[in-house]
Every structure is written in C-alpha cells, then in structure tokens.
C-alpha cells in the first residue's frame, strides 16, 4: 500500500497519521486536555506546531489558543508527547505508546515527582481530590478485604479500619502543588518540573482585562485582586506553561521566564535545543556547566557568538 498521511481535526481531537504497509504512526492531541500553552510549540524540533490565538468575543471569557500541527513537518518523534505538562498529546506506533527517543536516550523524560503517603490520610478527607484543578486525583477507600468501598458514611463505625487510597493520573499532572498545600496532613509532596519566574506588571494591564486569568488552568496561580481589580500571580502554584503569556494582549505586561525543567539525565543535542527554546541560552549553558559538558557548551557559545560567564 502506498504511504498514507492523514490529518483529522475534530472538536475533540487532532490526529496525525502515517500509515505504512507494515507500520502505523499516530499522534493524537486531546483537545479537552490541551490548554494552549507554549511548551510543545517551543519544544518541537521540526517547528511543526503552531499556536492559533482565538479571537476574543466581547463580553465573553478569553479562550486559550489552539494548536495546529503541520503534517508535512511532523516526524512523530514524540517530544511534544514527552514534554506536554498536561499529557494532552500521545504518539503511538502500531498502537503502542513507545517513546523511541527516550529508549535511545536521545531525549529525557519529564520528571513528575509526586510522593503520596496515604497511610497518614484521615478517612474523611478528600481535600486533595477537591483541590486538584484538573480533576486528576481520586480518593478511594479500601476495606480490609481490599475491596473498594463505595459509600463511606454507611460504614461509619468501621471507618477506622478503612484504608485510604489516592490515585493520581500522573501523566497528566502539571505538578502545580495545590494538592500538597491543601493537604492538612502533609500526605502529598509534589515537586515542580518547570521552574521559572512569572511577573505581571498591573500598571501595564488594560482596564478590566482578565484574559490571562481566563485561560490559566491552575486555579489559584493567578487571581484577581480586590484592591486594584488587576490580575496578580501566586507563584507558588504556577507551572510556567505559558498559556497566559500566549493570550496577553499587551507586550511586557506579563513576563514569563522558565529557568529549568526537571528531567531524567540525558546528553542530547535535541534536549539542549528544546531547553534553549523553552528557557533561554543562559539556562542551557548553566545546565551544561552543571553537567560538565564543556565541549557542547563551547559549541553553543560559538553559535551564539558570546561567552558564558
């Protein structure tokens, strides 16, 4: 069969396919999970992903940008899949989620460092489940026979014997740490994977504009101040995805800088490039220095034409 290349764009998903006689590559973007952040567009080594800003309709909330992937350019390398903080993209080969770039150590994996010690959980508490802005946490109770208990209240006297189980859909978790902070018992520890700095200068914000807040998927990372009626940042919860930056109508009102990304160790030019675009050349040089990769550092400096301090 001749090579078939397909692109399908529905309200739910965007799918790209290469169908060969003996192999099938598929990239699927779940539009319900995509928040229109910048990560994949910046990370794509083939520059195949573009953001399309959505026109703002007066009186409505701002909509997050949509992404579009160029079938001509995409090589199904799955770097977008790896880096998407929200797990919105999945690349499969013959239906299997195999990440060749990870297997061949040519790209790292994003570290989602989420520790849960459910043994400390109070039986009645569902704070984390309720707090998670993306509904990724599910608290369940197990009876002594390891069976899931449906109605906790019906077992009021045996409550003490119940075991609490916390299920987190880690592959979709952007590690905002809201659950950690909401947890009264310190059951959850979450470390962010994207680090950086976000800064809003309220004096530059247009009157009444809440576009960044409208699109921010992490409740609490941005908030509307009662004092000045402007949007402010709570860096504690920000995941530095950049969805806000994409929609901000004024230049310099919202500054976002990523400094590092927590990833599995790797020595890869593709990762260096991705990091350079996600963060900055300075950050990449810091990372390279830390790794002691002098040679690569030199080549980066040569390309940029200036020396790292």
């Amino acid at each position, binding site marked *: 069969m*001749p090579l078939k290349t397909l692109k399908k764009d529905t309200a739910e998903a965007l799918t790209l396919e290469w169908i*060969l006689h003996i192999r099938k590559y598929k990239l699927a973007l779940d539009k319900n999970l995509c928040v229109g952040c910048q990560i994949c567009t910046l990370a794509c*080594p083939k520059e195949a992903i573009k953001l399309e800003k959505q026109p703002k309709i007066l009186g409505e909330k701002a909509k997050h940008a949509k992404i579009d992937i160029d079938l001509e350019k995409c*090589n*199904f390398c799955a770097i977008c899949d790896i880096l998407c903080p929200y797990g919105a993209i999945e690349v499969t080969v013959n239906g299997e989620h195999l990440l060749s*770039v990870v297997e061949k150590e040519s790209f790292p994996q994003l570290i989602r460092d989420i520790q849960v010690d459910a043994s400390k959980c109070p039986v009645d508490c569902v704070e984390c489940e309720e707090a998670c802005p993306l509904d990724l946490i599910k608290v369940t109770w197990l009876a002594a026979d390891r069976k899931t208990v449906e109605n906790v209240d019906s077992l009021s006297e045996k409550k003490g014997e119940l075991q609490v189980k916390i299920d987190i859909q880690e592959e979709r978790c952007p590690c905002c740490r809201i659950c950690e902070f909401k947890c009264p018992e310190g059951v959850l520890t979450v470390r962010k994977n994207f680090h950086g700095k976000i800064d809003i200068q309220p004096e530059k914000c247009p009157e009444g504009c809440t576009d960044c807040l409208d699109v921010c998927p992490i409740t609490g990372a941005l908030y509307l101040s009662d004092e000045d009626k402007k949007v402010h940042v709570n860096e504690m919860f920000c995941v530095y995805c950049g969805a806000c930056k994409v929609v901000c109508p004024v230049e310099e009102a919202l500054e976002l800088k990523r400094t590092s990304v927590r990833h599995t160790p790797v020595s890869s030019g593709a990762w260096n490039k991705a990091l350079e675009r996600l963060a900055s050349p300075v950050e990449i040089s810091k990372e390279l220095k830390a790794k002691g990769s002098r040679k690569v550092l030199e080549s980066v400096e040569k390309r940029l034409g200036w020396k790292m301090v």
Partner: protein
Amino acid sequence: MAQKEIQKQAETEELRIGVFICHCGLNIAGVLDIKELIEFAKTLPDVVYVKDNRYTCADPGQDEIRKGIKEHNLNRVIVAACSPRMHEPTFRRTVSEAGLNPFLFEMANIREFSSWCHPSTPKEATEKAKDLIKMAVAKARLFRSLETMEVPVTNKALVVGGGIAGMNAALDLAEMGFKTYLLEKGESIGGHMAQLDKTFPTLDCSICIEGPKMVDVGRHPNIEIISFADLLSVSGFIGNFKVKIRRNPRYVIADNCTGCGECRDVCPIEYPNEWDMSLGVRKAISVPFDQAVPLIYTINKDYCIECFKCVDACGARRAINFEQEPEEIELEVGTIVVATGYDIYLPYDDPLYGYGKYTNVITSLEFERLILAAGPTVGKVIRASDGKKPHTIAFIQCVGSRDTNKYPYCSNFCCMYTLKHAVQLKEKYKEDIEVYVFYMDMRSNFKGFEEFYQRARELGANFIRGRVSRVFEVPETKNLIIHAEDTMLGQPIEFEAEMVVLATAAIPRKGTDEMARILNVTRGADGFFMESHPKLKPIDAPTDGIFFAGSCQAPKDIPYSVSQGSGAAGRAATVLSKPTWKIEPIIAVVDPDKCRNVKTKCGICAERCPYGAIKAEEGKPAQVRAAMCHGCGTCVAECPSDAITQMHFTDAQIFAQIRTALESNPEDKILGFLCNWCSYAGADLAGTSRFEYPPTIRPIRVMCSGRVDRDFILEAFRLGAGMVMVGACHLPYDCHYISGNYKMKARMDALAPMLQKLGLSPERFRVEYVSAAEGVKFAEVVREMTEQMHALGQDKIKVENEKLRPILERMLKRKGLI
C-alpha cells in the same frame, strides 16, 4: 575563417572552372544528350574545361578529375552526375587528392533529378540538366575554401545516472581506459534493479547479480562515483564539455564513514523509506539498503531532531558533520552518457483502480518490495489492511500504459514482471494462493520469455484477457471486486480478490524536462529523450558527444539496458579515443559589423538556434560556438539584419542559384528549396524509383528547411517564378536539426498570407513535408503543382508577377539584396 578574408580571396582569384559530365553508363547518357550538355557547359562563365566520362565515380573517372585539376589549373570543379547524397564525399576526396580544397567542388544532380525521372521527355530533361549544371556553376563561382576545424578532445567521460545502464556504460568506459565520472542523484548507485526481488525469466536474485557489479563500479580505479549530487549545468561541445555538479550534503564525511551502521542503531527517528516504496521505514541516519554503493550513511535533516546520538556513536571516526554545505564541482569531460532512467507511474489520479484509496491495491513495484526477502515484511506477502496473507491476488496489466488518455505507449516490461510475480507466488505458496492476471495482450517476445509465460500457465496462474473497467472495495473484508470484460468469453465478469497488484506504466523520470534543458537534448511526445535517429543512431543524442543508455530513452528491461549501456560506452569511445575531433566547416558565421545586438537587444539567432550554439550577450555581437553549430542555417534565415552567413550555403550562393534557375522562362518553372535530409532525399528516391514527373522543378539543396530565407521566396517571385515550393522534414520530429522545420513553418506561415494579399494565387507558394521515403509523394507534389501552374496559365502568372514585381523589388532593394 573571418568573413573579410573570404572577401579578399574572392576578389583576387581568377576563376577556372572544370565541368565533368558523367554518362553513368546509360543511366544518364541514355536519356540526356551529353554532347549538347558539353557544348552548353563550355559556354558558361569561367568554365575552362569540360570533360565527359562513362563512369566518373570509377577510378578512371576520378583520375580524369585529378588530371584536369592539375593540367588545366582548375580551382572549381563541377561533377554533373548522380545525387550529392551519393557521391559528394567521394569527389570531395578526389579533388583534395589533387590539392584542391574539397569545398570548391559542387555536384549537379542530373541523374536522380533528370535522366531517371524524366525518361519520356529527353529534350526537356536535357534542358533541365542544363539548368542544373548552370546553377551549380553559378554557385561554385562563389565558393570559398573552407577548412575542417579540429578541436581537442578531453578523454574523460561523464555518465549521468547510476542505474544498471549507467553502471555498465561507466564500467565499459573505465575498462577501455577512460577516466569516468558516474553521477548519481540518489544516495546509492544501483537504480531500479536494486529494488527488485528476482529478474525474469531466469528468476535470478536481482541484487545478487547486480551487487557485485555495483562493487566493481565502486572499486574501479578509473571510475569516480559522485553520488547524492545534481547536475547543474553543461556547457561546451563535443570533446570539451564543462559540467557543473552540486554534491548535496549528507552530513556525513564520505572519507571517514566506514559504513558500520552504529549511528543507525542509536538513531531514534524513523521515516518512510522511499526505497521500499514507503512500505517500511528507515532511520534518520541510514543507507537506503544494505548493499548501497558507496556505503556512506546520510542524515535526512527533514526528519533528524539533532540529538547527536550518532555523533557519540561515531566517536573517534568523526564522520558526522552537521555543518556540511553543498559543494559545487566542475568537471571537464569529452562525452556525456545520459542514463537517467524512468519512474513508475503511481495511479493516484485514476479513479478506476482505487489506488491510494483502497488499502489492498498496490503497484507492482510495491509488490516487489513485499515479496523481497530483504524487504520490510521479510518476504511475506501480506495485506496492509489486516496483515494476513491473501489467498487470491489479481494482477491488472497496462495501468496507464497503452491508454490513449494517459501514456499511449507500451511500457515494455510489465507483462514479464507480472509473469514473474505469478510464478514466484505459485512457487512460494503453491495451492495456497490463486493468481489471476487481467491482460490486454501478453507480450513475451524475447529470449526465453514465451517459455516463461508457459511456465506461469503450467504452475496454474489464470489469465483473463480483457480490460478492467472498475475496482470496488468490500468495506467489511477490504477485499476488492473487479469488474472486467472477458473478451474470450465476450461477456462482462465480476471477480473478488483479496489483493490487487497494478502493473503501472514506466514514465519519464521526474526532472526529465529539466535534464533535457541542461543537456540541450529533445524529448519525444512520450516525454522520454529523443535519439538522433530511431534506426541508425538509436544511442546518439542529437547533440554531438551526448549518448543515451537505458530507460531514459524508452522503457527497457535489464538486458536491453545493459546492452545499451555498453553501446553508449562504445559510441562515447569513438570520440574519447581520438586526440582531436573534426568539425565540418558548414557552420554559421556572424558578421560583427552588421549584428544588431551590438546596439539594440536582439538575440533572435540565439533564441532560434536549435542547439543553443549562439551566444548573444548584451552590447556584443552574437557569437557562434563553432563546435556546437550543426550547420542548419536557421539563424541565417532568421537574422533580421542579414548579419549571419552559412558557409557553403551563403545568401549570395543561393541567390545566384535562384537567379540562374529563373533566367529563362521563369513562369514555366517551379523553384524548389529542398532540405538535404528529407525532401531532397525524397526527390532522390523519386528518381531512383523512376517515378516520372514533369521536368518543371528546379531544385535548390539546403541543409535544412530552416535555412530558407523569406528573401529567397521574394527573389524567386520577383524574377517571375511560376511556382515556389519549400520541402521540409515532417513535423514534429523528423527534422535532423531538432526544430528547423518548425522555424521554417512559422516564417512561411507569416509570409504566405502577405504574398496572397499582394495578389499571388495561393497555390503558387507551397510548403510541403516530404520524407526521405516519400519518393511517390514528391513526384505527386511536382505533378500537382505543374498542373496547377498550367491551369493558372502563363498569362495569369505574368499578370500577377507584373503586379508583384515593383513591391518585391522595393522590399529587396531596401535590404540591399538587389
């Protein structure tokens, strides 16, 4: 020779012309009155010696010429005998043996053009012969010595295309001792043959027989493979081509790459392998197939993510360089063998077969990769829809080929490879598979082919004669329903197959048009390259020093391509083996003083030259590159300021012939301009075949109809010619100068209505296409024109002429021609 020197020579020389009249036994003497011709010749200006011979071409006859030149100090020689197409070279040699420049010799064709075609009117035939001799003398009086030029030959060759034909050409040339560059566009040589599983009719494994040959090519000390490179430009001429090539970056340093493949193993990226017809994949750093020559890996930057894992794997070998740039190479070669091959038609645009739409419809080349043990499925024939082996396979022949809406020609090898596939399937899966072949005609016309057809039948392949009208898919099973007509049964049939294999047409390779432009060669109606002569020069391109091998000229199977590769090498060696190459001096020469291009932007000559031999740079006079000029004279006729002359066919010489021919009773004569290769040859054939026609025509030989200047026609009518005819090679492809006939046609198409407007009866001026085989047609045309001339009547012609003359005179005077 510069024009001024020619002028000087003309002014100082005293003309001494010798006329030798041949009896040709009774062939001429039996009809014409030789005595009268002798007496007549003596009266012609500057003729100092006339002699007749029984057979001028025989040794005694030639001796007479040599003796005549010496004893009578002759400086022009006319032989009135047979056609110059027959004996001009003979007599040129004769006169040069006597110390006379061979271009001071002319023939009057009184046999083919007179005695043989007018046997029943000897008196008129003799009159015509007189005119022919007189015209020859008039032309010869203006002859100048011409020197055959010699250009040095670079004894290196370039072969474009590293398929089986190009490889063979390169190997043969290298074996003959010539340095040969083998240019390959792709990453590896081998061509289509390296993609095939088995070869018919012997079922040899294709790569097993080609692989060693590829290695031989790679190792030969006289062959330099330039792979992954494009041909940018070719300039120069036979013996002296300058070639520009761009070597594209592989991002792998050829000298450092050991072909170990460690880089491929660590590469994480895969992309569809075109070599496998995209059935399978290859890595972003890889070779298209394991036996590739040269074995150098290539990074495809379209897919590479630049993780540099390959750089680590390569390590100390340091073969990978991501900053590699394209490299331009300039070569000097003496000849070029073009072996650019073919493409397989992918019938996406033909809705009949559902290719690209139905999963289980594939082409034969895809099938080839499917059944190949080294292919992406390791030789398992499986359906793309479910990965299962099909139980019935239908082969459909002539997809695209022999289709008047698509490719009207037969693609030559499809019948045989389908038979091969049938035999392979039957031998591999025995009773477990049923093979059906839908065909129009089974063409198995070479050594061992018919026996192979028989073998396929004996193995149980079923053959259904009839064209397929439509293929549908059964959505549930992805099986295919074929609607066809069984012409044996004479009824429509419906047939279900689990897989359909289309034997698609072989088509000109993508970029053939660009290649034709670079090499300045022509393409036929089918888009393949045109050979110089379909029968006698099947390997030569019309441009000297360029030869064709393999399927770039027409679809060919392997043995044919191999033979043609060797043939092209042999033809190329005829050039390369000489230290110098002789160039006929019958070329165009520009008078820089008259050339309009100096003052205004003209360049008409450069544009009209079929060979691209003229360079017209702004502000400079046009320049003819002598070695590229083929001497058709098209530019001479096209030049708006008459600044170009064709040596040996100058305006002055042809005007002299026109004037002589029409000296007496012009209104009873047809003046004919005949191109050397077709119409003149056709007229010769009319004579040789003894087709009798009225002795009214006075033919003037030009090398190409493209040489026929409109001024010639005007002059003929000014002098009162009864009729004028221009004879050319048939359109579109017969012209021996690529397109001289087209240039003539455009010119005459504009001239004819103008003459009619001036009052000329339309039938009096005629353009006729007569091939060298159409003696009958030539005789018929002359007969018809004579009848028309008589029907018009002398009086009417004279009246028309009277009306035309002052206007034509004014036109010609303005150009300084009268």
